[in-house]
């Protein structure tokens, strides 16, 4: 199977991610990471899916397939949500955008890389099953998507657009031109910094990318930045096959609105009442070593209590950090635990993400 290609040929080290060949590192992860924390960096995230949903049944279809309250969105607003199955297990996480009124489509949502076709099929199947009047289009290879992130992002992007970026609050979006190209500009991101995501036509992507003159960043820095914030990575921190988890276990209960009707609601109501047995917990190592996906987590006595889902060396802290599902009593605690790295239990303590303030 050949890999899907982003709209721009980048001179960077490449990696296979979700069926796409994407830049992983332009300069060094450390350089790219600190550019975003201290000034500004740009990411080509065109591997993220883009699906639009329109028509009289669009709101109901979105409401019933995502966990957050789509009905609360005004045009130009966005929200984070999970997509769950009947058992409340997360299939993916996504951002749902209610598009500005000037656009023909009503909703745009962003599944993770490689999930666009699966979500398209899911949306079509449920539309037909429920007899809703809605048009669903997979625009993944029509829209390029760039993230411009960091404290200097408003100044950099502001110089290339007539939009008043100060008017776009967190989780809001507006339609406008960027470098002369018709785009959508959303104040969203995956780094914890101030920043924007720009969606523009695939074949005009290079014009926008080149106009935004700042440090290009790859998926390597994207991972260290999101991990310092404790943001989830679909397929790694939860996966319906390998690591089935509910939004409550994954600490994103804030994106579940049980007073709305959606697939998985009834199962999640039960979990909400009982409380999940395990929760995603942050871990900071106190010894040298890098925790990585799958490494066992133990009590100081050597009793197995979980496994690392994501881990890295935090470039900001200079400490090794990790996420792991542990028994729920560890959530909100500062307990001593061990992370087993190459058969060596390394001293660590639990914490509540984000790892940086």
């Amino acid at each position, binding site marked *: 199977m050949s890999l899907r290609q982003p709209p721009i040929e980048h001179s960077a*080290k490449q990696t296979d991610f979700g069926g796409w060949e994407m830049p*992983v*590192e332009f300069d*060094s*992860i*450390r350089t790219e990471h600190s550019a975003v924390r201290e000034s500004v960096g740009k990411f080509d995230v065109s591997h993220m899916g883009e699906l639009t949903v329109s028509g009289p049944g669009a709101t109901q279809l979105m409401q019933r397939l995502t966990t957050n309250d789509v009905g609360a969105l005004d045009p130009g607003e966005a929200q984070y949500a999970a997509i769950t199955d009947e058992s409340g297990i997360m299939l993916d996480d996504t951002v749902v955008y209610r598009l500005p009124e000037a656009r023909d489509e009503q909703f745009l949502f962003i599944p993770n890389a490689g999930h666009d076709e699966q979500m398209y099929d899911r949306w079509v199947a449920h539309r037909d099953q429920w007899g809703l009047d809605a048009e669903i289009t997979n625009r993944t290879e029509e829209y390029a998507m760039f993230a411009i992130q960091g404290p200097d992002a408003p100044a950099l992007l502001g110089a290339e657009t007539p939009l008043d970026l100060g008017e776009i609050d967190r989780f809001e979006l507006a339609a406008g031109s960027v470098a002369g190209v018709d785009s959508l500009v959303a104040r969203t991101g995956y780094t914890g910094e101030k920043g924007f995501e720009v969606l523009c036509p695939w074949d005009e992507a290079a014009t926008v990318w080149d106009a935004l003159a700042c440090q290009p960043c790859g998926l*390597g820095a994207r991972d*260290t930045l999101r991990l310092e914030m404790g943001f989830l990575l679909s397929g790694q921190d939860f996966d319906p096959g390998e690591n089935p988890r509910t939004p409550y276990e994954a600490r994103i209960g804030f994106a579940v609105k049980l007073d709305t009707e959606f697939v998985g609601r009834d199962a999640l109501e039960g979990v909400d009442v009982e409380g999940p047995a395990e929760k995603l917990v942050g871990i900071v190592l106190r010894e*040298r*070593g*890098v925790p*990585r996906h799958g490494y066992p987590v133990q009590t100081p006595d050597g009793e197995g209590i979980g496994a690392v889902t994501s881990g*890295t*060396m935090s*470039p900001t802290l200079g400490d090794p950090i990790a996420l792991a599902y542990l028994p729920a009593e560890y959530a909100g605690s500062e307990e001593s635990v061990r992370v087993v790295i*190459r058969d060596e239990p390394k001293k660590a303590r639990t914490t509540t993400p984000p790892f940086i303030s």
Partner: protein
Amino acid sequence: MSFQVPDDCRYLDSHEWARQQNGTVRVGITGFAQDELGDVVFVELPQAGDSVTKDEDFGVIESIKAVSDLYAPVSGTVRATNDDLLDTPELVNDDPFGDGWMIEVELDDESELDDLLSPAEYREQIE
């Protein structure tokens, strides 16, 4: 991109170098290898007095994105380790053939060096 391949070293195809100096052989990883790994954050080395065996792992190197075994280009006894790498592992990125060295080995058999790749052979491998 072209990488430095000093003529005074011999090479293992897993990207370690060996350089003879003052009766021991200094060992590290090549410029190509550190670039492939990216930001090095942790190096685990043997202690002075330990034995290492050619083509067997003697330690571990971790970058932000990957973990990799280190393979000994020669067999012998470790006489010194580069303790600076404990606190500044990024020396491996900054100066892989100099301050980023890893261990010094007293060889069991000097002729073992002849089995390693010459600079020209190694250059060919990474091109």
